[in-house]
């Protein structure tokens, strides 16, 4: 598979937090969802990719080039969108366009105006008069208008209403359609990732616990709800995590179909990304 972004054994230590040997890949034509609770290390990874933080060890490759050696050149083809808009509050739509046209050699003013019109953004209002959703739309318009090959979204959809979010997710799917682009999207809104992610990478306490295709997760992982007796009879080496609730045990397994064959009376639901995240974080890992 042709990788558009590759992190190899990236480590970063802070006084109270450590990113441990993070390896992550974004293949061309895919959307990789980076999930994890707040403080798990998602933003740290993104900050390291973009150069806001420097890794202690490990390597980052973007478009097969070492990020640290060709940072300026590589960033011409990366678009980064955060959870908030960082432009000067007094900027208008045209000022953002003007500024970015001076820095991106592939800046496409027509495309920019096209997005501005598609998002119905006011051209003559300064950003301090924009709503949060409008500001985020502007960020998407700006980042998509320099024809990046890799888009990195750091909780970029978190403050948006469902309608705007849906529109943005549609645009992201259009973006990867030609199989030449890729997206890394960090989010704790797992329903967004259910809609668009091809791969899910789950990070917890600075450590990657799981990287799977969305289809594998969707097909293979299951949640068993059972009483104590059945729980005790389940083979522990095949349980990923479990959680004792008031009246039942909730058990996460990664081979749902095998369990279904053996325990035909058990009700095994498909596990959602949220289930997996909750079980890993709040459950007991076996």
């Amino acid at each position, binding site marked *: 598979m042709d990788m558009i972004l590759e992190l190899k054994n990236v480590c970063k230590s802070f006084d109270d937090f450590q990113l441990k040997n993070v390896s992550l890949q974004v293949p061309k034509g895919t959307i990789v969802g980076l999930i994890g609770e707040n403080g798990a290390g998602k933003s740290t990874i993104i900050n390291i990719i*973009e*150069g*806001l*933080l*420097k890794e202690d060890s490990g390597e980052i490759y973007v478009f097969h080039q070492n990020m640290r050696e060709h*940072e*300026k*050149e*590589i*960033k*011409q083809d*990366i678009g*980064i969108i*955060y959870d*908030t*808009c*960082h*432009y*000067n*509050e*007094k*900027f208008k739509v045209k*000022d953002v366009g*003007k*500024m*970015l046209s*001076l*820095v*991106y050699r592939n800046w496409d003013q027509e495309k920019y105006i096209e997005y501005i019109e598609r998002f119905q953004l006011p051209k003559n209002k300064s950003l301090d008069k924009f709503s949060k959703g409008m500001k985020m739309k502007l960020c998407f318009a700006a980042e998509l208008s320099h024809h990046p090959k890799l888009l990195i979204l750091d909780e970029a959809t978190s403050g948006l209403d469902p309608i705007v979010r849906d529109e943005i997710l549609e645009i992201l799917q259009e973006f990867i359609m030609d199989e030449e682009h890729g997206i890394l999207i960090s989010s704790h809104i797992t329903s967004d990732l259910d809609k668009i992610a091809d791969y899910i990478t789950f990070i917890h306490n600075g450590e990657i616990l799981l990287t799977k295709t969305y289809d594998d997760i969707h097909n293979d992982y299951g949640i068993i709800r059972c009483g104590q007796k059945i729980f005790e009879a389940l083979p522990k080496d095949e349980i990923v995590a479990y959680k004792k609730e008031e009246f039942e045990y909730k058990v996460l397994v990664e081979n749902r179909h095998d369990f279904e064959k053996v325990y035909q009376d058990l009700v095994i639901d498909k596990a959602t990304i949220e289930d997996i995240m909750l079980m890993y974080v709040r459950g007991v890992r076996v």
Partner: protein
Amino acid sequence: MKALIYKDMFVLKQKGQIFSFLSSTIIAIIIGLFFRNLYGLALIVVLSIPIGGCGFVQIVMEKEERTNFDKRVISLPVTKKEIVLARFITSFIFLMINMLIALIYALAHVYLWHIVTLDVALLLWVIGVLLGFFLIGLNSIGYHWLGARKGTFLYLVVVGLSIVVYLLIFLGLDVEQFLSLGSTILFLIGCVFTILTLFISYFVSLKIFERKYS
């Protein structure tokens, strides 16, 4: 780097900011009109306008800190060296706009009021420019190290020291004797001192900026 300078200069497009930008210079000149002599000219051209002119970048940086614009700037295809250098260039532009007004004011003392000779007026103006550059160097370290708000304290300390130096030089010493050192020698000493300060300041600011994002 053009983009970085554009976004810094953008502040002047905002309502009332041009007046705010030039206010210290205008006020200094209005006050100076009541002291039309060599000391008055020196106070305005050598001290007041350079100090006011090099401080405006603080307003730009404070606005950026409010929106955490550094985060966006670093994600752009520019190096950290370019980011720091762009701030210096913007500061130079802000200062030189003010110093242009100072030059006109100094020339008015030569041709309009016949208070000083052209040599003296130009020498004072050059000293003002060099002092402005020197202050930009010091301020840059303060702003990068402590941020735009706290960095202002360093700026104020520098302003205080500049006033003390002014009082020592222009009131404690014989100005005529000081200026008779020879404009070339004074110019060369000032240039070397200022260039050195700017170089050191650039590398220190860059180091601070790199450490902040490491």
